[in-house]
């Protein structure tokens, strides 16, 4: 039984199909990265899983199961009992989930008091312990401070500590380091990786950065225009990318020592299209150098190897394995 199982999830907002049939699993102790460019539906996917879609968003799925139980028909009360307790979320902008009017300490302890009825003193101890665990050197001081008195990196650490208050089994982190400096990003990711190893929780990490993916993911799902176009173990995805979009993305990234200065980077022409409901054909075909007649029809999801799937009409193994 997977910790999280999403099968054929769809989300629409009026005339926009934001998520168009996504399937993914997160196992216990595993980091699954959902990667893609802005607007491809990463945040909507995570909000749909948590039952936090904005008004006007319609969710539909074959299955949406947490720890073996389908949560689609959970009431709002049952969902809020799960959120922050057994499944926790970290947002890109920490200020969206930190209340500026309360101290860090009162917000952190509130989580534990609400879900577990833990006495105050004990909750404070737990908060201080977790702040220490996420690399904050003066937990006592920070507990008494308000969110705006903290730097971005400290706020994000507080968010992580807060998400861990109730020992969640699943952590969904939506671009947790995108707003941070690279040095702080590395520290926060290292921390997440360490905590995961220690606590064995499952993480669904959302990012647009393939560098982050390479360093932290066990599994990767690459999203484009509301669909997962390629899914594989991190190792296979980087060694043997088979979807033209994945390959294009990888060629765009400057890697020190790889592409010479002044030599052009690979690039994907054009922009991400807006997809109306009922769209047929490959959403990438206007930008794809390999597009052909078949790409206007239904696109098959093909196996490209063990545990490696590609949504593309090209035959399996079309692109040879990358030279190491």
């Amino acid at each position, binding site marked *: 039984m997977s910790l999280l199982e999403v099968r054929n999830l769809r989300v629409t907002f009026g005339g926009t199909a934001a998520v168009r049939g996504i399937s993914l699993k997160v196992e216990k102790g595993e980091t699954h990265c959902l990667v893609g*460019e*802005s607007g491809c539906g990463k945040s909507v996917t995570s909000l749909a899983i948590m039952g936090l879609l904005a008004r006007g968003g319609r969710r539909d799925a074959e299955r949406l199961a947490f720890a073996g139980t389908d949560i689609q028909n959970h009431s709002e009360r049952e969902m809020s009992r799960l959120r922050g307790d057994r499944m926790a979320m970290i947002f890109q902008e920490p200020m969206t989930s930190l209340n500026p009017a309360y101290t860090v300490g009162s917000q952190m302890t509130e989580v534990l008091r609400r879900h577990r009825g833990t006495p105050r003193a004990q909750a404070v101890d737990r908060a201080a312990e977790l702040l220490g665990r996420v*690399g*904050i*050197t003066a937990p006592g001081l920070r507990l008494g401070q308000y969110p705006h008195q903290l*730097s*971005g*990196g*400290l706020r994000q*650490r507080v968010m992580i500590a807060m998400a861990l208050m109730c020992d969640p089994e699943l952590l969904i982190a939506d671009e947790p380091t995108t707003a941070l*400096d*690279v*040095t702080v*990003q*590395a*520290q926060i*990711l*290292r921390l997440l*990786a360490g905590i995961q190893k220690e606590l064995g929780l499952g993480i669904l990490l959302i990012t*647009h*950065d*393939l*560098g*982050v*993916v*390479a*360093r*932290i*993911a066990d599994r990767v799902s690459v999203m484009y225009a509301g669909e997962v176009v390629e899914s594989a173990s*991190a*190792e296979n*995805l*980087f*060694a043997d990318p088979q979807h033209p979009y994945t390959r*294009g*993305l*990888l*060629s*765009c*990234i*400057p*890697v*020190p*020592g790889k*592409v010479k*200065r*002044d030599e*052009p*980077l*690979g*690039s*994907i*022409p054009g*922009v*991400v299209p807006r997809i109306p409901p009922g769209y047929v054909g490959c959403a990438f075909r206007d930008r794809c150098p390999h597009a052909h007649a078949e790409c206007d029809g239904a696109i098959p999801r093909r196996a490209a190897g063990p545990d490696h799937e590609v949504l593309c009409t090209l035959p399996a193994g079309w692109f040879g394995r990358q030279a190491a």
Partner: protein
Amino acid sequence: MSAVPAIEVRGLRRVFRVRQGLFAPPRHVVAVDDVSFAVPAGSVLGVVGESGCGKSTLARMILGLLPPSAGEVLVDGQRLADMDRRARARLIQPVFQDPFSSLNPRRRVRDIVAMPLVAQGSISSADIARRVEEALARVGLSAEQGTRFPSQLSGGQRQRVAIARALVLRPRIVVCDEPTSALDVSVQAQILNLLAELRRELGLTYLFISHNLAVVEHVASEVAVMYLGRIVETNESEALFAEPRHPYTRALLASVLTPEPGLGVPDVGLGDTMPDPANVPAGCRFHPRCPLAFERCPVEVPRTTPNGTGFVECHLAEPA
């Protein structure tokens, strides 16, 4: 290489007075602290450093958009302070990070691109129309796209508009402040390729600010690393990436996450103290975070030690 640097700054400093409350004494934020360097004509100087270290403040002083508290800026050998606005605009132009807020939403693209020409006051409207069309074509925009409003363009197209506007006066120098930070990687690659092509064809000099070291490595011929208002290390790009001398440069390089699986997330060893530009530490300003700090560091300011084509400011790099 011409002997006159495209940009030269000498002892440049900028202090902001920030009031926190009605009765609180004002705090002084030293955003740029006694910075000197030169950018050879035809080169690309990449400036890297954490958020708030003073990169944009430096850029705005070099563009003449912000008066320095002390020191001076020379552009193409002339003192910026002595130049009139129009002459300055013909020599040096900006491209900013946010293609959403840096373009007037109520004007059409071609009028936005025409602005610097119109501001010159002496160019005929036929010439303006022709040069706008030329500039748009250069950056890969069609005449039809020129009739649109910024809101009708994608982020990458808007950044092309900003580049066309910067080039329309045929300047020698372009200051790019995080030109691709708001863009997706696929679009970033398009814009970086365009900037490189324009530089080669037009012989431009760039000051290229970015927090992304991999991007800087790709575009810059020299690199300056900024920390809390000072340049703590600068060198020719290859040497800086191959042999970083300053512990902060090393931490920055260590934190670049290249798309190579299996390497894990590196330990950058910086702790959780964040720099506060209103409260610059004594001695070496990096000492509270430096993994190599020793007794002299909190008390003695490191000297500027020549290194390669540039310098480094760290006690460990000083000759014995």
